[in-house]
C-alpha cells in the first residue's frame, strides 16, 4: 500500500518569524528586501553591481562638477556583501576607473597632471577597504549564525534527552513497583513518579518560554494541582479544586523546590485529608508581597490532636520542612478554623532573595 519513500526533510517547516511590534512591522519590508538581496547569487550580485557602476558614472558625467564619488559605495557594498571580497575589490577598482573616465571627459583643471590618477587611486583604496571590511563582517555574521543554530539545536537535544531520561526513570519506578505486593509500598513509588512528573513539567515550561525570567510558576502550580487531583482523589470522594495563583515572579531554583513542596502538600492532603469523605474542597493559593506565600488548604479531617511537625513528620513533611529551609522560607502547618488542614509556606520575593544570597541562612520556625 505504501507508495512513496519517506524522508524527514519532507515535513520540515521553516521557523521564519517576524516581530509583532509596530516598529518591527514597519521594518518588515526592509528585512524582506535585505533577505532577497542576501539570497542573490554571486554572479547576479556582481553583474548588478557593474550595471549600477555604469549608471552612477553616467550620472556623474551628466551632473558635471558635483561629486558622486560616495554613490559608488552602493555597488561596492552590494558586491562585497553578496559575492565576497574579490568581487568587492573588483567593483571598487571599476568604480574608481569610472570616476576617472568621467573626470577626464569633463576636463577638470588640476595643479598637477597626475592628480586625477592619485585621486582615483585613493578612491579605489577606500572602496577596497570598505569591501574588505564588509565581506569580513558578512563572513563573521554567517559563522555566528551557524554557531547560534548549532547551539540552539544542541540545547533542544539536551532538553529532549533530559525529558526522555525522566521518562525512563519514571518507567523504571513503575516497573519496579509492579514487583511489589503491598499497596503502601507501591504508593511510595507512585509518589516518586509524581515528583518526577512535577519536575519534568517545570523543565518543559522553562524550555517553552526560552527565558528564565519568563517562567510561569502560577501556571505550573495550577497544572500540577489539577493533575494530582485527577490521579489521586480518593475513591468515592468528589473533590473541588480551587487554585488562586497571582502572577508571582519566582526564580528557577525556587520554582523547582516550591513545585516539589506543593507536590508533597497536595499529595498529603489527598492521601490523608479525605479518605472516606464523600466530598471535599482543596484550595491552593499563591500571593506576592514583601514575602510571598503559598497555601495549600483542605477541609478534611485536619491534624491529629497533639500533632508536632518536628516529631511526627513522615517523609513527605520532612521533605517539605527541608525544602522550605532551602528556599529560606518558613512553614506554618495548622488546623484551619473552618476545619481541615492549612499549610502556608512563606518565602522571600525574587528581589529580596537576590540580596539575601550573601547573608547567613535563617533558622525556620514552625507553628503546629
Amino acid at each position, binding site marked *: 500500500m*505504501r507508495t512513496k519513500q519517506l*524522508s524527514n526533510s519532507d*515535513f520540515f*517547516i521553516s521557523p521564519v518569524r517576524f516581530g509583532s511590534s509596530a516598529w518591527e512591522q514597519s521594518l518588515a519590508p526592509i528585512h524582506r528586501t535585505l533577505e532577497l538581496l542576501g539570497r542573490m547569487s554571486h554572479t547576479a550580485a556582481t553583474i548588478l553591481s557593474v550595471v549600477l557602476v555604469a549608471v552612477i558614472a553616467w550620472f556623474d558625467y551628466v551632473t558635471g562638477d558635483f561629486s558622486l564619488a560616495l554613490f559608488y559605495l552602493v555597488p561596492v557594498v552590494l558586491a562585497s556583501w553578496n559575492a565576497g571580497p574579490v568581487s568587492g575589490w573588483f567593483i571598487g577598482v571599476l568604480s574608481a576607473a569610472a570616476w576617472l573616465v568621467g573626470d577626464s571627459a569633463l576636463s577638470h583643471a588640476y595643479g598637477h597632471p597626475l592628480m586625477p590618477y592619485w585621486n582615483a587611486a585613493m578612491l579605489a583604496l577606500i572602496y577596497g577597504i570598505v569591501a574588505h571590511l564588509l565581506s569580513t563582517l558578512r563572513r563573521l555574521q554567517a559563522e555566528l549564525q551557524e554557531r547560534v543554530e548549532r547551539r540552539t539545536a544542541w540545547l533542544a537535544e539536551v532538553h529532549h534527552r533530559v*525529558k526522555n531520561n525522566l521518562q525512563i526513570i519514571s518507567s523504571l519506578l513503575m516497573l519496579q513497583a509492579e514487583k511489589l505486593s503491598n499497596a503502601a509500598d507501591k504508593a511510595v513509588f507512585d509518589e516518586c513518579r509524581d515528583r518526577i512528573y512535577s519536575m*519534568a513539567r517545570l523543565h518543559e515550561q522553562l524550555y517553552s518560554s526560552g527565558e528564565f525570567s519568563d517562567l510561569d510558576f502560577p501556571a505550573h502550580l495550577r497544572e500540577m494541582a489539577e*493533575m494530582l487531583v485527577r490521579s489521586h482523589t480518593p475513591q468515592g470522594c468528589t473533590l473541588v479544586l480551587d487554585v488562586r495563583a497571582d502572577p508571582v515572579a519566582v526564580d528557577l531554583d525556587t520554582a523547582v523546590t516550591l513545585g516539589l513542596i506543593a507536590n508533597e502538600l497536595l499529595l498529603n492532603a489527598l492521601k490523608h485529608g479525605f479518605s472516606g469523605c464523600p466530598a471535599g474542597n482543596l484550595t491552593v493559593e499563591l500571593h506576592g508581597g514583601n514575602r510571598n506565600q503559598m497555601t495549600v488548604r483542605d477541609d478534611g479531617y485536619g491534624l491529629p490532636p497533639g500533632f508536632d511537625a518536628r516529631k511526627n513528620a513522615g517523609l513527605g513533611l520532612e521533605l517539605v520542612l527541608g525544602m522550605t529551609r532551602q528556599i529560606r522560607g518558613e512553614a506554618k502547618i495548622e488546623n484551619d478554623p473552618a476545619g481541615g488542614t492549612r499549610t502556608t509556606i512563606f518565602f522571600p520575593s525574587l528581589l529580596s532573595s537576590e540580596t539575601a544570597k550573601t547573608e547567613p541562612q535563617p533558622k525556620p520556625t514552625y507553628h503546629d
Partner: protein
Amino acid sequence: MTNARILIVEDEAITVSALKRELASLGYQVAATASTADEALNAVELHKPDLVLMDITLAGTVNGIVAAVAIRGNFHLPVVFLTAHADDGTMERAVAAGAFGYVLKPFSGPGLKAAIETALHKYQTEIESRRASTRAA
C-alpha cells in the same frame, strides 16, 4: 472506548514496557509494538489497531511525524504523539501531520487516557461524518 487496540511506536525498551502496563491498567489492549517507522507501517497493516501511540524520535532514519503522515494517508488511523519534544516547531509539524493528540513525556496515566479517549472519539466522529457525506452524495 476501553478495550481499544493500540499500537505502540517507541524505540526506548523501558518506556515500551511501562507503556504496555499503563495501557493495560487503563483498560486498553496493546496490539503490537514497533521501534521504527517501517516496523510501524508493517504492524499497522498486520494488526489493524484502533489507534497508534507514536514517539517522534524513532530508531532509524525516518521520524514519527513522517510515519504518522504515512499511517494517516494509507490506513486512515488516528495517531497520538507521545514525545519529550515540547517545542513549538515540533508541535506545529505534529498538527500538520494530522495528530489526534499530543502527550508529553513523562506521561501520567490520566493524561494518557484523556488523550487516547479524545482521539478515539474524534476519530469516530470523523468516520460518521464521512459516512454521512457519502450517503448524501
